[in-house]
């Protein structure tokens, strides 16, 4: 994932439900899905981060970022990840994010220049039906940059994510990224969205299938059907929510609510639908991702996740942002608590890839545009 959103915190691509298995640790009795009947061990991630500890890391990042007119944000990003990854343990080894903040700076500069260019295009653009045409022309002109950003971002982020000092990696090529990003976005629009779940499925296959841990490749066994079901469910939530919201809006107008409250009420069904899609797809991706014979499972509940997001938003707004670090930990803690691995291989027996980790420029452009390419 490229998004700077730590809620999307994940160490690899990734989640639908497999048949229920016993929750106990230890050798699982019936592991008959793989080609060999090797004994497997069920493992969970331990998460040791604490609210006030993370608050201190966060507020130091905020102060130094403001003090340095944003330059420190590169350090803030790395230190945030190092705190969250370093607080995540698997089998006695913690994860780490080993990027050098200085290597993020050229990409950040490029991203700021691109964003400033878009802002100027928006400001100077004539409007047609209220749409700034220069702005959209500039976006279109930047589209060929997208595959490069995707590949660089994912290889940078995975390449610096380590466990027992072995790094994840991404080998995706630009052709694949070009196919599943700008071209697929165009195809999704051209088919009025009906091909979108299929395209998302192919994109996930591309992203996961080209990822590795050390020398061990990830594979994705998911199919397109559950993607359609996830989007169908989200559409039902959005439509049902809007039908529910219409009487609420008239009530709001009757009691004299302002445009801000009206906007929140109107957007709420779409926000909940997007959370539903994210949760269902994250579950499905992880549950169908393999690392050799090793399997994963993520079992987030959409309703629980919606409650986390909504309560977090209210607390963040009420505390003028001071609740942000606590809100992040709540989400990460929940995600990790619902994540398990079924390991066939000995965790000490993975072979690392000693080749150098990739550069950061694309990753930073991706982060600035919030291109979510992973979980």
């Amino acid at each position: 994932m490229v998004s700077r959103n730590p809620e999307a915190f994940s160490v690899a691509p990734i989640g639908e439900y497999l048949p229920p298995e016993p929750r106990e640790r230890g050798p699982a009795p019936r592991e008959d899905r793989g080609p060999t009947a090797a004994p497997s061990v069920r493992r969970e991630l331990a998460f040791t981060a604490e609210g006030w500890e993370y608050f201190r890391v966060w507020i130091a990042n905020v102060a130094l970022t403001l003090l340095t007119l944003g330059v420190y944000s590169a350090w803030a990003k790395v230190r945030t990840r190092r705190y969250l990854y370093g607080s995540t343990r698997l089998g006695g080894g913690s994860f780490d994010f080993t990027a050098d903040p200085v290597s993020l700076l050229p990409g950040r500069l490029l991203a700021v220049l691109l964003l400033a260019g878009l802002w100027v295009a928006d400001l100077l653009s004539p409007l047609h039906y209220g749409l700034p045409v220069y702005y959209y022309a500039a976006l279109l002109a930047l589209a060929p940059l997208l595959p490069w950003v995707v590949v660089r971002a994912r290889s940078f982020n995975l390449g610096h994510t380590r466990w027992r000092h072995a790094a994840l990696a991404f080998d995706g090529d630009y052709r694949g990224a070009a196919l599943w990003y700008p071209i697929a976005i165009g195809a999704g629009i051209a088919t009025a969205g009906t091909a979108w779940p299929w395209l998302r499925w192919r994109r996930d296959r591309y992203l996961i299938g080209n990822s590795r841990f050390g020398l061990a490749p990830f594979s994705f066994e998911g199919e397109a059907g559950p993607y359609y079901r996830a989007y169908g469910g989200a559409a039902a939530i959005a439509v049902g929510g809007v039908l529910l919201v219409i009487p609420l809006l008239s009530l709001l107008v009757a009691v004299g609510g302002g445009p801000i409250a009206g906007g929140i009420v109107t957007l709420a069904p779409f926000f909940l639908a997007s959370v539903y899609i994210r949760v269902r797809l994250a579950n499905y991706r992880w549950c169908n991702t393999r690392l050799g014979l090793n399997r994963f499972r993520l079992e987030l509940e959409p309703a629980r996740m919606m409650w986390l997001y909504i309560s977090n938003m209210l607390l963040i707004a009420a505390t003028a942002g001071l609740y942000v670090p606590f809100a992040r930990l709540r989400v990460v803690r929940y995600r990790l608590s619902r994540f398990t691995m079924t390991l066939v291989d000995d965790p000490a027996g993975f072979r690392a890839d000693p080749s150098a980790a990739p550069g950061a420029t694309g990753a930073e452009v991706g982060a600035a545009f919030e291109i979510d390419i992973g979980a």
Partner: protein
Amino acid sequence: MRIDARFFDGLVTSGRPVVLTAGAPGSLRLEGAGADREYAYAELRIPGRVANTPRHVALPGGGACVVADNDALDRLEAELHRAAPALTGGRAFRRGVDRIARLLERNAAGAGLALAVAAGILFAAARWGAPALGGAVVAAIPPENDAGIGEQVLRTFEQVGLFEPTAVSAGRRAELEAMFEPIREDLGVDARLEIRKAGRIGNAYAFPGGTVVLTDAIIERAVHDEELIAVMAHELGHVRERHWLRMLAQSAALLIVWSAATDPTMTTLAALAPATLVELSYSREFEREADRIALDYLARHGVPASRLGDLLDRLMRACGDRCDGPSWLSSHPRVAERAAD
């Protein structure tokens, strides 16, 4: 000093327990798992401490030692740093940054200092920084650029159906034009008057580039032409000060600073709520400035100052109490406050 650590060779994930000590002056000694080795301080990459998370000390050749005892590693690092040749360039810079970060995050006092710094900067940015930037942007962009944008905005309002052609008679329109022209000349701005029907909405707008729009409903509600003169002077005040452009620049500056502080995502966007309140306060400040310009014009032309408030009062009464909520949630100051000014 002996630190228990785990050594990973960077080839497989099986670690070996090792012990780290200070070796020859300025060198790290690694004992255990067969061969003992020594590394010069300059060869190592010891990352700065983040809270109490384990650190991966990178060794030359791709291996690393994972150390959980952060206090001991801090002491060992300080000892190596003292004894080794001074760091230069990038290494010294990175170490310096890590130490400053650590100072702020290590305890409650540091966090308090960080909080005070952040709050102070945000307050200064909202109170002085953004308005100063807004002024600079207004000075830098020649007014000729505004006209095209205003035209476009007006056309958009018409295309989406917010504005319809006026039902006001041609004779009445000519009278209004005749009232408008001397105010425009007096305030020294390049502007023109447009009249549009906007359903039952009684309001007046100042578009970029100097197009002032009065709606049919506000013209109907006015019981005295001087009330409309006051409204025109108010809108021309917005035009003269180019408030739309100032607002755009100030809001952009504010949102950039606020976003940099909170790293916005779908959820943390909620932290922008206070920024919205600041934006509304800018808007009210612009309204007050336009009121002052209008009142000044009225005073110089012998028109009672109450004309401005009278029409506003009537518009508010027409829409009931709920139109005038708490002033901190509103883009305009309360009518009662404005009347008092």
